[in-house]
């Protein structure tokens, strides 16, 4: 069980695409310093994953549907929720100078 460190928080913030205010950082670092050792207690029960337990749920029972042509949601209905758009496209800030 490792000690949760500030540099670990920085690493997962980058992975998460998040930044925190000073107040949030203080609070979440304090919380995660307790939560991470707690959830890592899982190692007490399952020392290591057994081969038969590693595979994801069998998809053998998954419901497969016929490939039937249906009316699709129009792009306008989707684009109405875009935070910024130009005609029938999403717009984003300039990516190349």
């Amino acid at each position, binding site marked *: 069980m490792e000690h949760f460190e500030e540099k670990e928080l920085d690493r997962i913030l980058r992975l998460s695409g998040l930044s925190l205010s000073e107040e949030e950082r203080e609070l979440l670092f304090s919380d995660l310093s307790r939560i991470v050792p707690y959830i890592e207690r899982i190692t007490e029960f399952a020392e*290591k994953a057994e081969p038969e*337990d590693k595979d994801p749920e069998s998809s053998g029972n998954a*419901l497969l549907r016929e490939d039937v042509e249906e009316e699709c949601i129009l792009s306008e209905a989707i684009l109405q929720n875009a935070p910024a758009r130009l005609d029938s496209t999403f717009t984003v800030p300039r990516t190349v100078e």
Partner: protein
Amino acid sequence: MKREEIFSFSAFELARKIREKQIRAQEAVEAVFQNIDEHESNIHAYISLDREAAMNEARHCDELVQKGGELPPLLGVPMAVKDNLLLKGRKATCGSRMLENYIPPFTATCVQKLQDAGAILIGKTNMDEFGMGISTEHSFFGPTRNPLDPARVPGGSSGGSAASVSGNMAFAALGTDTGGSVRQPAAYCGLVGLRPTYGTVSRHGLVAFASSMDIAGPLTRGTRDAAGICNIVTGADPKDQTSISGPKIDISSLEQATVKGMRIGIPRELSGESESRDGFSLAVSEEVKASLEDAVRILEEEGAQVEFFDMPILSYAVEMYYILSSAEASSNLSRFDGIRYGYRDPDAKDLASLYTGTRSTGFGLEVKRRILMGNYVLSTEHFDDCYRRAESARKKLCRSFDEAFSRYDVLLSPTAPQVAPLLGESGKDALQNYISDLFTVPASLAGIPAVSVPFGKTSLPVGLQFTGPRFGEQAILTAARFLEIHQEERKEKEAKGGTENA
């Protein structure tokens, strides 16, 4: 008809009265909105309401009744749905700034089924952001209060749905349950909350939190309403490949439910006996313990075989749940990038700051905590130690349940360790909040059905939970209905006694 009388009916009784022309759907909707006008500003069960649409639908229902012919089972019944279930053309915010103005282009399958059954959807209910929370205090739109005691929380994350029904601002509601979000608010608000077998309710149109555990379920004033609504919303759906059809519940057999000969197991790990491990413990209140003891006595008196047994893996259920659900949440919520839909940080200058700025200002604190936990357990350094081991333990948990159900018909436990806490209390210690999910997360991990039913002599409601094997809804609702009948008879006796004494 007087408002009090209208609200003495269950959802399906109301539907019958409407079909039999004893009451008009418009009267029922008006009664609901009168209560909303009086209480909603204090309770805040709803994020959005549409009175005009509800009244129009009610008029249409009354016209159908006048025409006669075969009428759908919930015709004219005012219902509410949680704001993470999509209803075409009506905002679906998930309690988040990120989706504050999101208008879905389609309707969730389970919501469509309610509409097809004739229900009038009067509004979308408040919730902890993206379903992450146990108090409905983590909503961008502010907290919901418990109608039974507005100083207290209604539970979460389906707290708005629970409050809408408990406060007579809807006849029934749909919530969603990932780790207990239907059952725990039901317990706090004195309602029945049913989590059906995973997959039996389509997830199409349910905004994802943890896809391997998410499911919609009813919050109702009684077990028969829960069973009836469950029968309506369940069934395989081509739009959700994990969906599956299960047996329908025989509601008529619930009328005089008996537990004679039923084998009921109580896992010691979920019996309310607080056990400290590595300095972490779960404090179960005396009133919850007393309600469980009361139930055991009554079940045994009726002829049930009640037995305590050990299921040690349950002691690790909270760890499993928070590893796996956070991993799935961090993956599901990566879609919120400020580009395709939803909120965008107005100050973003480039693509990187657009992404980070949108997520950092669009998500609330609890959601950020879960995303960080998820990315921690999924990162290369911790994937085998945490995620793989939790996945392995989950399989072992499922096998332990299989073994338990070879000996018992249903399992019994409290739904939550205490009655509804005061507002502000449950936000103080995130880890302690997570540990308090111990009673509800095992069924979520195993994908098995569980129902919370109010039971006990306490002033604030206590919920007891029956858990069954996959497709075991009939058995758990039979046991819950038995306690419900007993509770109703007890209240009748008390009322009579009170009158006599007065």
